[in-house]
């Protein structure tokens, strides 16, 4: 089974869960004064859940025929050529993004950002640290200034143990 059909199957299961929540768990919470109302909070989700299952089934069963003449082009992204891609680098970068999210509060903006930028370029094969570290430091400082001072959004620059 091709990937798009697997996704359709997951989508149908998702819609069933969503529909279950809408049909069976939401209506108890509707306050009495709203019960004479023709629309409840669950009305629209119910419609969506049913439509979602129908459309998902159409994709899963392949009722709509794909364009047979279309050949996937070499430059287009295609999961059948996944092994040819630099999967490790991409996963490492995604991992770095997660690490950044977790580090941002405790380590402070400046340190987290510099680590992210330097580690990111290292993952991609850059070895000129004497360029990358100053560049990331300047970028982090500049963005911090922009966000905190110009846009006025709180962003802790330093680690938690150095005050705020």
């Amino acid at each position: 089974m091709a990937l798009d059909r697997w996704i359709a199957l997951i989508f149908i299961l998702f819609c069933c869960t969503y529909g279950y929540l809408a049909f069976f768990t939401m209506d108890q919470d509707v306050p009495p004064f709203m019960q004479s109302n023709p629309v409840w909070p669950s009305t629209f989700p119910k419609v969506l859940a049913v439509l979602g299952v129908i459309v998902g089934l159409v994709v899963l069963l392949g009722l709509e025929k794909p364009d047979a003449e279309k050949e996937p082009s070499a430059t287009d992204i295609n999961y059948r050529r996944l092994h040819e891609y630099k999967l490790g680098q991409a996963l490492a970068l995604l991992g770095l993004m997660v690490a950044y999210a977790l580090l941002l509060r405790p380590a402070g903006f400046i340190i987290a950002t510099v680590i992210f930028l330097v580690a990111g370029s290292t993952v991609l094969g850059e070895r000129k640290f004497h360029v990358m570290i100053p560049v990331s430091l300047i970028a982090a400082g500049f963005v911090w200034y922009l966000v905190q001072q110009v846009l006025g959004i709180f962003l802790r620059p330093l680690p938690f143990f150095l005050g705020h």
Partner: protein
Amino acid sequence: MLEGIMIGLEAAFSIQNLLLVVAGCLIGTFIGMLPGLGPMSIIAIMIPVAITLGDPAAALILLAGVYYGAIFGGSTSSILLNAPGIAGTVATSFDGYPMARNGQAGKALTIAAVSSFAGGMIGVVLLMIFAPALSSVALLFHSAEYFALMVVGLSAIAAFAGTGQVTKALMMTLLGLILATVGEGALFNMPRFTLGIMDLQSGISFITLAMAMFALPEAVFLVLNPAGSAGGQDGSRKITGLRFSRAEGRAMVPVIGRQSVQGFFIGVLPGAGATLASFLGYAVERNIAKGDDQAEFGHGSVKGLAAPETANNAACTGSFVPLLTLGIPGSGTTAILLGALIALNVTPGPRLMTDTPEIFWAVIMSMFIGNVVLLILNLPLIPYIAKILSIPRNYLIPFILFFTLMGAYIGQNNATELLMLVGLGVMAIIFRFADYPLAPLLIGFILGRMMEDNFARSMQLYRGPDFILERPMTLGLLALALILVVLPSYRARRARKRAEGVADGD
């Protein structure tokens, strides 16, 4: 109308707004030039900045400038590297790249800039004529018609998704609508589908979703498949000789005239947009051209370069018509703009022109200014801006990812939002691998709340779903939506049967 133009000029010519147009165009050109990053990613990255400006007119002006700049930058990389940054400029590379290879890169860039300028300008004039007319019709609409109109818009976007893609696009639209129901709505004062998670109480942030759907996957694909993007190689090639001859100018004029009008009207249609307009523009001009002219297409033809460039800019302008008059976005980019406006407490729609004419007209006027800025400021700078193409991707990609992270953080001021960004981004990457279109998801998400509001209001008014039958216009629009969805597969089936030689009954 004259009064409106005056209001618009006054607003657009304030120092702040002029600076914003210039900044927007420059940033847009800069990032739009990077192969692989389209206008949707750039606008998504710029939205937090626009929202913190606080002034809706200023925000729209900045974002419209970025949009124009991105399209312009996209054609630059198509011409110089044969690596279109976005689908809308693929047709530009057909003739632009051969021209650049013949050593006429400067001329190609100028032709592209002049025809984009003309396409954009004529598009804005058409927008000024058609938007007020359309919005006075739209004022007659009730919530039932609005609901139906949104259904039509969403179906049209799915219908234009291409052969074999219609149900996939519909599936994505529904997923977008479902995601929009998460959180506490204005209509019912109760949280829905939050699964008890506090961070979902206020719903999924549209900035995070937009970044996760476009900017993040595009950056990751640059990593995955370096061959897909030819960036960082010969971008620093010398660009000289920006002039084109008088004869070439004369050849361009009729092309520009035809393609700006055609492009504009294609742009107005939901779901069609700049890509379709540029390909169609190229095809039409090639068919019209005769003899030697036609043979030159694909080998550096002036007409072949002017046609898609005019058409895609006119279409970009055209796509503002449904956004500003009906409040219904026809493309991913205008959907992101709509999201930004909603975040600034402005609801685009027919009332926009009567309630806050200054926003409407300021945007129109800034489109004029944006086009002029692109022509007289950006064009001479292109040889310098093109240097960005030689920035190594090892530096570029971490920065792009960092900006998506920052955008999501600024939008919500919350570190868990970043985890959500990565999660949704991974989902988007899987969808892209399976060839699911992502723009419908975002458009569905942004229209979801409004659609439910209008649906609920008409249900309350008519005490049930009778409004569908009692209002002929609603019924008509819903029927149209059904036809739009069913027609592509019906036609494909007929074509297939005909190809197999089976009689199809008529």
